[in-house]
Each structure stands twice: as C-alpha cells, then as structure tokens.
C-alpha cells in the first residue's frame, strides 16, 4: 500500500495559480475575435495579480520540506516569485498589443504563465530534481517565446540559438547533479550539505551546477547567447527574460551555493569572483560600440550579472541582502529601460537604435511636460544602470561591492568599480542622445541600416540578392508588412512608473534590504551575521533615536 504523501499545497500556491491560469488562458484563447483577446489579457493579468497577492500575503510563511522535501518555500523563494511575477505582469502589459492578426491569443499568455510557474518552482526548489524540472519548464517556455515573434525573421534564429545553448547548459547542470547525487546519495539541497562524503565528485558536480546556473544569469564566459537572443526575441519577452530569469537564477545560485555547497565555499568563491570579473569586462567592453538598443542592453545585462556576482562573493556578510536589493533594483531599471525601447519601437515601426533616441528628451514646443517624461524615465534608468549617485543603481552597487570588500575581496570591488567607470561611456551615450543631439533623419537611417532585416522571407527558389543583381524581380520576395507605427501610452506610463520606482528604491532602500535580510536568514542558520548586525544596529539605533528626539544632534567632533 502506498503511503499517502503529505501535500502542502499552500507552499506552491503561486505556482498552482499560474498553472491553472495558464490552462484557462489557453482554453479561452482558442476562440476568435477581439473580445477573446481582451478576455485573455485580463485573465492572465488577473492570474498574475492574484499570485502576486498570494505571495506577498504569505511572504513570511515558510514551509520547509514540503512535498517530501521537494519544495522549500521561504523568503528567498518569495523574493524570487515576486520579481518573476511582477516582471511577467509588466511583460504581459508590454506584449498586450502584439500578434493580434492571426486569431490565436492564448499561447503568449499561457507560455508566460507557465514560465512563471516554472520559475516559482525553480526558486522554491528543495531538491535538485524540482530545481531541474522547474528550470526546464521555464526554459522551454522561454525558447518558444523567443521564437514566437512573427514579425522578425531573427526571432526564430534567436529561439534556436537559445534552445541549443540552453540545452547544452541544461545537460551540464544535469550531469553535475548526477555527480553530486552519486557522491552523496541524495538530491536534497540541504541534504547534500550534510553529506560527509565530499570528494572530487562533489566538487566537479558543484562546478557543473555553478556553470549551468551561471549560464542562466548570462554571466560571461557563458554569455554567448545573451546579445543575440536579447536582440532577436520580441521586446516584451526580452524584458521578461532579462529580469525574471536572471533574478530567479541568481537566487537559486545563492541558495545552492550557500547551502549544498557551503563546505566548498573556499573553492566557489574565487571561481565566482573570476566569473564576475569576466562578466564585467566582457559586458562593459562589448557594449561600448553597440548601436542597437536591445543589444546594448544585452551586453549591459552581462555586466550587471558581473556586479551581482560580486555581491555573492560576500555571502557570509551582507552579500545576500545586497544581492536581493540589487536584483530588485536591477529588475526595475531594466524593465524601465525596455519599456522605453518598446515605446520607441512602436513609434518607429522597427527596432530602435541609439540614433533614434536623439533629441527625444526635449519637450516639443507647445507640448506639455508629460511628453518628455518617458524619455526622462529612460534617462533615469540609464543613470541608475550606470550607478551614478543618488540613484538606486548606485546604492545597489554600493551594497554589493561593500559586501565583497567586507569579505576581503577589495580587489574585486576595485575591478567592478573600474568596470562601472567604463560603463559610463555607453550609458552616457543614451543621455547624450536624448538630451544633447538634434533628431537627425539621415543619421537614424544610417544607424537603422545595420539592423537585422525586418522579417525578409527568403523564397525557396530565390534570393533577394539575385533580384538586385539582375535588376528584375525574378522571384517575388515580399517582406512581412513592417510593423505599423503607433503610440504606446500604457507602456510609456509603465516605464515612467518603473523609473519612479528606482527613485523610491534609492531613497527608501530599507524595506527591500530587510527582505534581503530575511532571505539571508532563510538561507543561513541562526547566528549568521545578518542577525548579528541587526542586534548591533539595535544598540546603535537606540542612541540615534535619542539623538533624533532633539532636532539638533550635538555631537563632539574630536
């Protein structure tokens, strides 16, 4: 007789909600017409909102070892879920208008919802099995999403590249898991840490798992897929991928490294530091000459992965709270930047380049300030990505690098800060274009010439080049209708709100850092330094409170 397994459904509440939502959306989306389209959109937004509400309401409810040890739903997982769900919510808003012509509405939403479901499972994984299954669930959904953008020929290419490289890294991760299982006899993430048999098998397995997850966070030298896939995928998908995937992968990386492989921290810390340096160098240097905005953001995302890894190096100190804060800030500013990219794309009817930004920061004569607000949001996001004080990006870098310095990795912080100096060169270009250049048609056209062709369908028997050569259209090679230009006020609004959110995060960082502290305490046992610091802060805090009572705190100088 099979014993009835204990099922703590609430521990995977958000995943259940999104899974059910995905199926509903899929079913309803089978219908035709604009009404169905609206229904599907509302339904998927609703699903995500409910799941988000559920997660927030139960943020501090932790369940360890649910489903016979497959799920550890804790604060760390909930942070990941919140980022993934919010990012999906925004991506759905971004993608609301796309693909309206072919009568099928459900897939995009169903795939996004499934991906979020997978991410939730991934980030709440209590064992390597659920980790891998969750990873594959969202990865496969993302492969499809990348290839789905019918308006761009490059979309399929990006999907295939992502799938093949992702498959390669999944296989590596799987093999690493197998090796760890072989040495320890368990798939349990916490259980692996307790296994006494630690040898070369565990080390190799840990390295392979680390590599596989580093691929997902698009850290160099596993970054190869990033620029191409970012450019090729539809912008809503890119925005979703660049924030949600990276965030959950980082949190899982933190979970796995600091629990399962905590005994190997003497080895993985330097390796992570090395990956961080490579990412910072490759991302920042690679971005310097990019003109395609999404590609630029792709490289920038590689560099940002490097900065985030710097925080992971200081995991024993304030690294995990810093990482959580930085992930949230990163997600907000990246989504904000992509929102503006999308607004531009809608406006232009094609991909956006740097030259298309020219002069958009100005208020046109006789128009209200509101017109220039989205561009201002973009500028804020760029400043924040560059880490210029007093933006949230500055503070997140500050916290990340500070954690590394605390951990004795001052050289790493030095490299990271130097890298962010280099990054100024390309982030400032965004500002320079927005505020210091006049719009210039010819220049924009010249830049646009370097873009991938807008879905030029090459006929089986013909090549467009033949046509140009011979001068007569031997084989008709039509282009897919170029996207019709239009406005995207909702997306612009979302972008502005996100930019505002980065400001809020800069001036009120505390609640978010506290989330990070909770996440850290979820990861590491009691007596970890986060609690130590809080204790220290309480004693320190009392004196500041006393000082705050009188408006003028009189303090001796010497």
């Amino acid at each position, binding site marked *: 007789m099979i014993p009835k397994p204990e099922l703590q459904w609430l521990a995977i509440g958000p995943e259940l909600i999104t899974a059910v939502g995905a199926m509903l959306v899929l079913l309803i989306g089978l219908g035709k017409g604009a009404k169905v389209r609206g229904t599907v959109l509302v339904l998927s937004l609703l699903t995500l909102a409910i799941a988000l509400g559920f997660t927030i309401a139960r943020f501090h409810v932790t369940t360890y070892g649910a489903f016979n040890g497959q799920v550890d739903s804790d604060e760390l997982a909930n942070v990941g879920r919140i980022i993934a769900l919010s990012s999906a919510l925004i991506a759905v808003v971004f993608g609301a208008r796309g693909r309206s012509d072919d009568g099928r509405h459900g897939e995009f939403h169903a795939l996004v919802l499934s991906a979020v479901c997978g991410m939730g499972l991934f980030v709440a994984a209590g064992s390597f099995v659920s980790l891998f299954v969750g990873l594959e669930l969202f990865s496969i959904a993302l*492969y499809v999403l990348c290839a789905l953008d019918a308006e761009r020929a490059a979309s399929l*290419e990006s999907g295939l590249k992502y*799938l093949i490289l992702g*498959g*390669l890294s*999944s296989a590596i991760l799987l093999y690493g898991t*197998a090796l760890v299982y072989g040495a320890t006899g368990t798939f349990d993430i916490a259980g692996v840490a307790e296994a006494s048999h630690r040898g070369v098998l565990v080390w190799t397995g840990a390295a392979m798992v680390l590599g596989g997850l580093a691929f997902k966070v698009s850290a160099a030298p596993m970054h190869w897929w990033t620029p191409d896939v970012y450019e090729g995928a539809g912008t809503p998908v890119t925005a979703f991928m660049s924030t949600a995937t990276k965030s959950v992968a980082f949190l899982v990386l933190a979970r796995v490294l600091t629990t399962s492989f905590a005994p190997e921290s003497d080895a993985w810390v330097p390796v992570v530091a090395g990956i961080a340096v490579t990412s910072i160098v490759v991302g920042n240097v690679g971005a310097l000459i990019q003109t395609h905005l999404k590609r630029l953001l792709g490289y920038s995302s590689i560099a940002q992965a490097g900065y985030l890894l710097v925080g992971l190096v200081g995991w024993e100190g304030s690294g995990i709270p810093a990482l959580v804060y930085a992930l949230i800030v990163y997600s907000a500013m990246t989504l904000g930047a992509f929102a503006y990219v999308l607004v531009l794309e809608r406006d232009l009817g094609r991909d956006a380049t740097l030259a298309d930004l020219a002069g958009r920061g100005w208020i046109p004569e006789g128009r209200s300030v509101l017109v220039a607000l989205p561009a201002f949001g973009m500028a804020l996001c760029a400043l924040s990505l560059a880490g210029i004080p007093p933006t949230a990006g500055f503070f997140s870098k500050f916290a990340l690098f500070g954690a590394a310095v605390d951990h004795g990795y001052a050289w790493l912080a030095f490299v990271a800060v130097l890298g962010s100096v280099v990054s100024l060169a390309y982030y400032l270009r965004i500002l320079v274009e927005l505020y210091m250049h006049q719009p210039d048609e010819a220049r924009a056209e010249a830049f646009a010439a370097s873009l991938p062709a807008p879905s030029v369908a090459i006929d089986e028997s013909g090549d467009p080049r033949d046509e140009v050569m011979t001068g007569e259209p031997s084989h008709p090679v039509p282009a897919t209708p170029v996207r019709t230009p239009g406005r995207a006020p909702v997306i612009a609004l979302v972008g502005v709100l996100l930019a505002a959110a980065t400001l809020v995060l800069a001036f009120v960082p505390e609640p978010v850092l506290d989330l990070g502290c909770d996440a850290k305490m979820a990861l590491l046992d009691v007596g970890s330094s986060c609690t130590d610091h809080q204790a220290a802060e309480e004693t320190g805090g009392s004196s500041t409170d006393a000082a705050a009572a009188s408006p003028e705190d009189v303090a001796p100088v010497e």
Partner: protein
Amino acid sequence: MTVSPEWFVALSGVLFAIGAAGVLLRRNALVVLLSIEIMLNAANLALVGFSRVHGAHDGQVFAIMVMAIAASEVVVGLGIVVALSHLRRELDTDDMTELHG
C-alpha cells in the same frame, strides 16, 4: 556484480563528451539537437548508474523525468527547425547569422 557501476558511469562520461562534440562541431541544426539528446542520455546513464550504487530509486525516477523533458525540448527544437525550414533552404547554423556583433 562483476562490472561495477563505476564503469557505467565512466561510460556516461565518454558519451557525454561525444554529445558535447556534436554540439560544438556540427552545423546541421538537427544533428545538434540529436547531440543534445546524447548528452542528456549520458546524464541519465550516470543517474541510473548512481542509483544502482546507492540502491535507491531517486536516480531512476529522475532519469524518467529527464526523458520526458528531453522529449519536450526536442519537440520545441524540431518546431523551430520546421519553422525555419519554411524560410530558408539550409538548416546550416552557420547561415543563421542575422544576429551578430
């Protein structure tokens, strides 16, 4: 057992490397997908071998799930390949350089 499970696992290492060679060296998208299958199968062999080492079922169960997942990946991969085939003549990945730089 005469042949100790380590040998099976070692074999899986060899197969894994062969599969990786396919991914790294081949240009035909279909063959690259096949190579990924080989890699996942090699990982499965390792899981199953270790499952035998520990005398526990976890590895086997995981292996079966991996099979389903690998099949899913293949379906999506083939879907993309078929879609691409409507647009291009060759499945040569070297021809897919629309995105670069």
